[in-house]
């Protein structure tokens, strides 16, 4: 267990990625849209000031975009993923242990450093990441993970901190807790926040002053852990390796409404294949596959329908072919004609490691052949890009594919989409 955690958090990460390759966007309001250009999922500070909310539907802001008061981008996860990698790898040069917490956040083990000025080191980290990758970051340092979160949030907000805050002195920690609203504490959702405020707990400091028994009674063991963490007692370790996921879901809204079985199947088969690939990447197999379909709940003219079906497969698998086969059976069971479908999804659960599969005596599938085929397919996908080789059920036309009318180029991963630099100016 380390004695000191750093938390590095990229400022407005998606918008910052777009700005690295188009600095004209600096200081301008930028938003990034969800899959299918449906609604706002990320906002630059300037966009927040314009009053744009998370989840605002695109039609609400279209006017601002058309008049260049606001710059909107379709989500470009290829670019964001690569930039995230660069940030995380830069961070891992500064400490032997890191935990990549999300696409734009990373915990660093800063304990056990001998004779180092923490402030100077934190600045060094922040400066290096921004210089190397172009992404601005905030950095918080504290004795526990939850306090590092507090430090990071204040580092971002306070002009004095200017992006870096080290909380090691008890007096500073108390001040920081006092300046943190209870709803801004890591892991406190809106319901708990309401409940706590009703009991006159308005800040993180009030929370730490509450008795542990009272917290245990009203907020389960998770609340107790948070209480300890904020009081400086570390209970959350650095998870250096992400645990294999217990359930994987791939679901998207369609680019347009679909009504025929074949179209919905094409999309659903592709989601099944995506789940299979994710399973193979984490070296696991799944036993249960669930398929769901739904119409557009926001459309008042459409008749509404939602249904799902779960199938237990004879042997846990990570093969595209098998998962698509069972997903198709599940879809056949729930698909009804004469509806406008807006979304379908595939969820795989009961996930076990590859080497712990219970085989079936009556199993007729040549699993070794499947495994070899999948290896070859994954190899081809890695070499030639997505969707170059696939199971035929996933279709060729892909009329259901997502809209992404405002996508920036994949500047860092595709040789055909590099930024342009001019010789003469």
């Amino acid at each position, binding site marked *: 267990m380390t004695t000191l955690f750093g938390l590095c958090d990229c400022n407005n990460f998606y918008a910052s990625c777009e700005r690295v390759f188009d600095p004209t966007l600096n200081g301008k309001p930028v938003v990034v849209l969800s899959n299918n250009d449906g609604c706002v999922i990320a906002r630059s500070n300037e966009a927040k000031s314009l009053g744009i909310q998370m989840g605002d539907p695109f039609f609400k802001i279209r006017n601002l975009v058309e008049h260049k008061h606001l710059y909107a981008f379709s989500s470009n996860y290829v670019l964001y993923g690569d930039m995230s990698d*660069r940030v995380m790898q830069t961070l891992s040069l500064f400490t032997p242990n890191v935990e990549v917490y999300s696409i734009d956040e990373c915990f660093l083990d800063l304990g056990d450093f*001998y004779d*180092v000025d923490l402030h100077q080191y934190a600045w060094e980290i922040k400066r290096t990441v921004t*210089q190397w990758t172009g992404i601005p970051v905030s950095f918080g340092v504290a004795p526990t993970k939850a306090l590092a979160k507090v430090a990071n949030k204040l580092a971002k907000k306070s002009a004095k901190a200017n992006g870096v805050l080290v909380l090691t002195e008890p007096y500073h920690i108390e001040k920081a807790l006092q300046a943190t609203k209870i709803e801004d504490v890591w892991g406190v959702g809106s319901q708990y926040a309401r409940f706590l405020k009703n009991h006159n707990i308005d800040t993180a400091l009030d929370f730490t002053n509450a008795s542990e028994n009272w917290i245990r009674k009203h907020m389960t063991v998770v609340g107790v852990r948070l209480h300890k963490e904020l009081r400086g007692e570390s209970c959350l370790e650095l998870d250096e390796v992400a645990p294999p996921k217990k359930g994987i879901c791939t679901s998207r809204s369609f680019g347009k409404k679909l009504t025929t079985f074949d179209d919905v199947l094409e999309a659903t088969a592709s989601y099944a294949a995506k789940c299979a690939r994710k399973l193979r990447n984490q070296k696991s197999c799944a036993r249960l596959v669930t398929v769901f379909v739904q119409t557009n709940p926001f459309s008042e003219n459409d008749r509404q329908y939602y249904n799902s079906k779960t199938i237990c497969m004879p042997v846990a698998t990570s093969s595209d072919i098998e998962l698509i086969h069972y997903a198709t059976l599940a879809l056949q069971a729930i698909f009804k004609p004469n509806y406008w479908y807006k979304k379908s999804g595939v969820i795989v659960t009961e996930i076990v490691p590859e080497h712990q599969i219970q085989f079936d005596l009556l199993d007729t599938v040549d699993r070794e052949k499947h495994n070899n085929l999948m290896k070859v397919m994954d190899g081809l996908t890695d070499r030639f890009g997505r969707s170059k080789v696939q199971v035929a059920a996933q279709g060729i036309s892909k009329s259901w594919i997502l809209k992404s009318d405002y996508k920036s180029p994949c500047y860092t991963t595709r040789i055909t989409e590099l930024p342009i630099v001019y010789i*003469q*100016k």
Partner: protein
Amino acid sequence: MCNAKVIPISSYALELFDFDFLDHVKLPLYASYVSAGFPSPADDYLEDKIDLSKYLVQNPTSTFMMRVKGSSMQDAKINDGDILVIDRSLKAADGLPVVCFLDGEFTVKTFKKVEGRAYLYPANPAYKPIEVTEEMDMRVWGVVVWVLHKPVKL
């Protein structure tokens, strides 16, 4: 890179993890793969193949590429359609080609320091050098470390 003095105590901290090279570890292919018969005298002298990307890219996390547009300039030896390999971790120093952002576009210039003042020199004498001042919204984006282009057919 680090000015702060850091001496990690734990011994395992000295292992450098570089994921980039972990995901494609190349194994040398033995020249003599027939167990019977005469072993190749070269077997004990096998080395990894030259990895061009390792040679071109010193620091993968800070290295980006851009595509050149504009008419060819003999002085700078940079042509239309070339690829520039740019390292953001390097400091602009006198005489180095840099990519900077001017008037809404990326452009290549030569960074010059004259009597403590910084200038950006175009490779084309038709254009004037620009002095870099504090109040200018001009940032050096990165330093050009390689210019890649195909040979010109003569």
